[in-house]
């Protein structure tokens, strides 16, 4: 067992370094570095599955004279769950990368990309297993830095650099808060080890507890990309290579969920009532605003990034309800809420990974990111289209795919909030459920737009018309994830008990599985509802087969005449006459104009007469309020502050020496006086 993890780590290190041996041969470097990553991930899947099925846990302790405590790794069910999704997604992403990074060959160093890529995965693996705050922060930082370098990998483009800078700033603001949270725990517990934190949780004074909660929530919330801390996410994720975006959106932001759950359920003891409400409020804002902003995006990867914000919101809805139930002393419901959240974690990793890989395929087949210039790709890229279609249906929570299963669980969890809890929550929780329904319906709209405009209809540009299907390894990477979208739904009755084990390590209560899963049915804890993903899939396919055969037998073979689309009797339908993505989302832009506050600019050029137009330009923009109201003033304030600080910077070395001298004297006074 242990061996698997060792070899996985070793292979990632090897994969990171070995690429440099073939620096001159791009293709060899590519195969070695990503091939080893594929191998390592496969082992990681075996390892984590082993732990999850046996329910045991695995411990590795490196003794020695470490100043901050021993370097200790533990993989219980909770860590193994996150190990599993990291390994699973990096398996698909690495397979995809073998074909995808070919376009960098001769242009960029594949070895360098592979180096950061492998160490990025490795850092995530360590983050979710290490048992010491100091090393956690160390690996957390490595994870942030390697991902930063992956974001600015194509640093020739100025937008990549500026996105990278924003990401670097935001992730360090987050890390500062996490560090503060850990240091406060350290002061209280007297040690950096997680076990000490757990032991000291009961005696945490309430004020300190609340402060730590806020620091951890802000810190991890920044990494997870909850609104209003999300601004880096839609900038940074699209700039990275697509297989890296898949990992960042699919699993890196989930490590923040890992950290948050660790704090909430392990380090902070009994949970005050207001935490749940705070998390729920942030969650519903992220869910709704995430999808509403996504609707207005036409850069495919930015659109997907906004959907990550939405889905983090859905996950946090589950987490928030778990907090509510924990503080209301309903451990059974709390575990159920955690199961819903964890289920959505793995589902989102699957379909969001798939969609980002699909976006990468479009990019490699057409070199276009803007969906306004795509169209008709389904003919030249049938495999990519089928995979992207499955991902779109899954993220829109359509049965019988996996997205629906976890959304169903989240619905049930929210409706359970009507029992017990506070009177306000009794009313708000079904309302939250309805808003989740709104978000689901809007997500479906957004993905009809994204899939329909890019894959269906006629090509809107030369590149789209001459798109080519991607290579075998890229197809395989997407295929694995697409199949999992079905698998994760059909296997729900087996997955829920495993997630129950994971939830148990958090909430500490054993859940009677008979009350949650009966045969193929998932059962709501209050027995108010049941649902069987397998049966629904069976019924739908049986009806489908029935309908097809029935028509065929009853009416015989269909006789079809292929003609051009109807052109209203005016020949010459052009691709430009099709609906655009902007036009598609126009009704929603009008309906939600109080939120978007859209501005538009129309420029007309004519030859002396209004009827003789020569050119027409149209520009439409929406307002991102958080950017406008919070971050713009903030960055201006920082700029002013640094201009003020500049006045003491003259550039004379004597002056700097005297600054140092004065500081030294002051410090001596300050500390000398104390001792």
């Amino acid at each position, binding site marked *: 067992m242990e061996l698997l993890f060792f070899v996985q780590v070793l292979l990632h290190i090897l994969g990171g370094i070995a690429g440099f041996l073939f620096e001159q041969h791009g293709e060899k470097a590519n195969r070695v570095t990503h091939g080893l990553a594929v191998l390592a991930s496969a082992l990681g899947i075996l390892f984590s599955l082993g732990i999850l099925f046996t329910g045991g846990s695995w411990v590795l302790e490196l003794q020695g004279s470490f100043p901050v405590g021993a370097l200790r790794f533990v993989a219980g069910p909770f860590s193994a769950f996150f190990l599993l999704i990291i390994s699973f997604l990096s398996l698909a992403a690495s397979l995809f990368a073998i074909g995808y990074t070919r376009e960098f060959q001769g242009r960029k160093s594949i070895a360098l990309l592979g180096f950061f890529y492998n160490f990025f995965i490795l850092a995530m693996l360590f983050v979710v297993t290490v048992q010491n705050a100091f090393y956690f922060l160390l690996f957390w930082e490595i994870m942030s830095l390697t991902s930063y370098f992956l974001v600015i990998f194509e640093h020739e483009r100025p937008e990549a650099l500026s996105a990278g800078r924003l990401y670097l700033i935001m992730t360090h603001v987050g890390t500062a808060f996490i560090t503060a949270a850990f240091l406060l725990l350290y002061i209280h517990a007297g040690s950096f080890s997680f076990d000490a934190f757990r032991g000291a949780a009961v005696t945490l004074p309430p004020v300190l507890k609340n402060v730590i909660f806020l620091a951890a929530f802000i810190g991890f919330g920044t990494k997870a990309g909850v609104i209003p801390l999300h601004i880096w996410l839609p900038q940074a994720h699209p700039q990275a290579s697509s297989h890296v975006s898949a990992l960042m959106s699919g699993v890196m932001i989930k490590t923040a969920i890992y950290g948050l759950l660790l704090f909430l359920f392990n380090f902070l003891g009994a949970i005050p009532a207001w935490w749940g409400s705070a998390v729920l409020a942030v969650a519903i804002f992220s869910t709704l605003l995430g999808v509403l902003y996504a609707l207005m995006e036409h850069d495919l990867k930015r659109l997907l990034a906004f959907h990550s914000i939405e889905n983090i919101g859905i996950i946090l809805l589950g987490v928030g309800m778990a907090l509510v139930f924990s503080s209301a002393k309903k451990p059974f419901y709390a575990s159920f809420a955690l199961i819903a959240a964890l289920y959505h974690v793995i589902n989102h990793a699957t379909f969001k990974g798939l969609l980002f890989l699909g976006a990468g395929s479009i990019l490699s087949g057409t070199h276009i990111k803007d969906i306004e210039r795509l169209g008709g790709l389904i003919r030249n890229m049938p495999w990519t289209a089928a995979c992207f279609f499955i991902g779109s249906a899954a993220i829109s929570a359509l049965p019988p795919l996996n997205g629906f299963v976890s959304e169903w669980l989240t619905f049930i969890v929210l409706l359970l909030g009507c029992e017990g809890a506070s009177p306000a929550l009794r009313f708000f929780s079904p309302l939250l459920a309805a808003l989740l329904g709104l978000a689901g319906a809007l997500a479906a709209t957004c993905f*009809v737009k994204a*899939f329909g405009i890019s894959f269906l209809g006629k090509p809107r540009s030369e590149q789209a018309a001459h798109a080519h299907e991607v290579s075998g390894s890229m197809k395989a990477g997407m295929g694995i994830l697409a199949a999992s979208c079905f698998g994760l739904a059909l296997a729900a009755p087996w997955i829920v008990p495993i997630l129950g084990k994971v939830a148990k390590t958090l909430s500490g209560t054993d859940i009677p599985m008979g009350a949650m899963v009966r045969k193929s049915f998932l059962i709501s804890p209050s027995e108010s509802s049941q649902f069987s993903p397998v049966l629904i899939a069976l019924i739908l396919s049986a009806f489908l087969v029935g309908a097809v055969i029935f028509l065929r037998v009853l009416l015989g073979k269909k006789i079809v005449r292929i003609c051009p689309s109807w052109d209203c009797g005016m020949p010459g339908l052009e691709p430009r006459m099709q609906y655009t993505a902007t036009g598609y989302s126009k009704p929603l832009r009008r309906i939600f104009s109080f939120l978007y506050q859209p501005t538009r600019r129309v420029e007309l050029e004519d030859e002396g007469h209004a009827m003789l137009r020569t050119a027409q330009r149209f520009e439409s923009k929406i307002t991102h309020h958080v950017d406008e109201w919070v971050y713009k003033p903030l960055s201006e304030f920082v700029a002013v502050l640094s201009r003020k600080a500049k006045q003491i910077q003259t550039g004379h070395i004597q002056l700097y020496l005297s600054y140092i001298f004065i500081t030294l004297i002051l410090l001596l006074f300050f500390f000398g006086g104390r001792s």
Partner: protein
Amino acid sequence: MLAILLSVIQLLFLAILAPALSWFIKKMKAASQNRVGPSLIQVYSDLLKLFRKNMVISETASWIFHAMPFVLFVSTFAAASMLPVLGIRSLFGFTGDVILFVYLLALGRFFLALAALDTGTTFGGMGSSREMTLSSLAEPALLLAFFSLGFCAHTLSLEGIVSYFASGSPTQMLFFTSLAFGALLIVTIAESGRIPVDNPATHLELTMVHEAMILEYSGRYLALIEWSHQIKQLVFLTLLSDLFFPWGIAGSWDPLAFGLSLVLYLAKVFFLAFVIGWIEIHSAKLRLFRVPDLLAVAFVLAILSLLGQLMIGRGV
């Protein structure tokens, strides 16, 4: 065994009855305009004729275009199979709950909206965009209305809710369930594409929603789509009658109870169709950007109903 047979029969009955309801509303409208209107046979022979016709398919169409009529039909049919019609037990009601019901309809709509974009015409995009916009606003109202009813019934399964109301709900609930009825009625109008939300009788680009999406379809595909649409309309009418006028629905498979239930069911759905038709005759189609206001009314009604249930209800 008999139970299964009868629940299959009631499902088929619903599917076969569905065109008759459309005929009824058409006939009402014709009468209001001093026309004779089509005969009952006409709607069925229209469907049959379409089923037998050859098809013209756009050269731009992909597999989505071919799959859509089947998926739309199957998802609508599956949603119908969860619904109590004549007896309280339905064929597949045990497999899921109201949430599944709502999302099955969403599955059909997802394909419908995509197929509209598949042929690369402006009309398709227009209908698709409008349909998705309106339905994403209707869906939360529908869910919330279901939740508020589920609150009194203490269950989310359709069968459970219906049998709770059929066994005589407490009268103090009546006011709040009637609010939910208002919400569901508006959603029904929106989902079945009726005036004031959409005009099923027009092919005018300014007003089309549903018709714009299926403009490129012909022959048996069109027949399937039309039939699905009629079934969906009847599903919503049945839902209204099940939830708000459940009296007389057969609790057992006793022939007498079944027969009585059949008569009452016909009376109820035709009455509801009369209400829908009456609204259609007496109102003009709303401007597209006024429709969200109507749907907001449905949402507010559902919230009020929920608030009421919370004060006296039992919780899910």
